């Protein structure tokens, strides 16, 4: 079935809308559902298993109403305009910045979806690896510098300060080359 709104893509989301003449069912694609401002989801629809999963698991003992009121306080994603509430409804992020916007809430979401796991433990892109190595190096040098200052070895501290400066320039060059890392 084609999406009722754009009539281009396959409908994969069933929206139940309350109107004055009673509830009506609308069949939309994910994209149109994303762009639609207000809707609620029918609980027995098939295609949105992730969404169902999220809303069922996250609501827990809280009533959906309470949950809704609470999540509406969450900020909107500045990049794509997705709210956390809507994220729970459609079960999809709108853009990479959503991860930053909802960062505090996400461990709970991922924990439920990924068997308690909330942290990535796999491949890291090579460019990221270099940046992360440099960042670790800077942190290490900073710690050494603080120690040197406390021990009043100011000459040593000055050497470390210059070294940190060099590494920061390298990091800036890395970021310039590959674009800035998400969340930096």
């Amino acid at each position: 079935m084609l999406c009722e709104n754009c009539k281009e893509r396959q409908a994969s989301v069933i929206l139940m809308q309350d109107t004055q003449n009673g509830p009506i069912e609308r069949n939309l694609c994910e994209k149109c559902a994303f762009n639609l401002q207000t809707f609620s989801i029918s609980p027995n629809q098939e295609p949105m298993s992730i969404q169902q999963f999220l809303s069922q698991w996250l609501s827990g003992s809280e009533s959906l109403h309470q949950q809704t009121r609470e999540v509406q306080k969450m900020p909107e994603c500045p990049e794509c305009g997705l709210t956390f509430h809507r994220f729970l409804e459609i079960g999809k992020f709108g853009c990479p910045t959503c991860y930053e916007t909802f960062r505090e809430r996400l461990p709970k979401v991922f924990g439920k979806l990924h068997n308690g796991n909330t942290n990535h433990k796999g491949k890291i892109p090579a460019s990221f690896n270099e940046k992360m190595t440099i960042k670790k190096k800077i942190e290490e040098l900073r710690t050494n510098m603080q120690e040197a200052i406390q021990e009043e070895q100011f000459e040593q501290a000055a050497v470390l300060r210059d070294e940190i400066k060099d590494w920061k320039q390298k990091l800036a060059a890395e970021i310039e080359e590959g674009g800035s890392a998400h969340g930096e």
Partner: protein
Amino acid sequence: MGNKRFMQNAVTGWMVPHGEHADIVMSTRIRLARNLREFRFPIAFSDEQAEEVGEIVSEALLSEVEKGYSYTRMKELPQLDRQVLVEKHLISPQLADAEQFGSVFLSEDETISVMVNEEDHLRIQCIYPGLQLENAYQKANETDSALEKKLPYAFDEEFGYLTSCPSNTGTGMRASVMLHLPALTITRQINRIIPAVSRLGMVVRGSYGEGSEAPGNVYQVSNQLTLGKSENEILAELANIVSRLIAHERRSRELLLEKSRIALENRVFRSLGTISYARLLPSAEAARCLSDVRLGIDLELIEDVEMSILNELMIFMQSGFLQHYEGEELTSEELDISRAKLFRERLKNGPSKADEQTDRP
């Protein structure tokens, strides 16, 4: 369109039985979901952004990675051709349904496909015949590493690869193995196995993914978790479960042969008769009979039919292929007639001709 030419174009790498446990494992597939940092996900991006993503990715793929990729925009591909790509498992139904801005890059041997602007900006897929989890991952990973040098991926130190759906966040990897499990199905053990496997963080489904049944007793086993485990850990766990399923299937086959050989032979040969002589062959019946005949070949009850023909027929029996073969749109009755005709032709052609046509790398 000549039969032979059609077959040559249609057979793709993973359909030729090869690799470990090729009698039970039909294919191994690795999929990596990746996104570009500066763009909204396809669910939310604008037409201009969609166009731009397509351009950036094609530049990276065509100039840098490897020559020999073919590039196809969905909007320029007739609906039927898209369906054929889905039936060959080279693109997802979602990409085929799509989207003005969806496209696919296919390597020459069709083992690697890169889908652009599906649910994520990039879906890198590698599909191999038989059980080849490590090889398939290695190949997909090579493509990913080559692309990552050119493309600014959305990646986060805590959450890993950022994807549109939270169920892919982390490695972005879905590894799946397609298994033919007739004995576990006949003996109804599969119903107990499916929930047991899901407790181990893996999913068993029908061969066409979520919500699909298992036509022809073909099941897809894949990882559910993408966070908290490395790619190698996920692959090792999946390999472990798959090898247990294979062992279980083999034991059940032996038991069936031992306890009810005549009933099994009866079923296998009736099915061979049906697909060799039927004039109307509905898809459910075709799938069931193919499964029986495949089992019969594995158990050496049937000796004069090549396994490679069976793998092909499982794909060619689908409606997109049949319509492509006939060169026109078909009603459901016409499809059943066409399917029966194709089966008769292929099974009469005999093993020697089939070898010539399918013996591709």
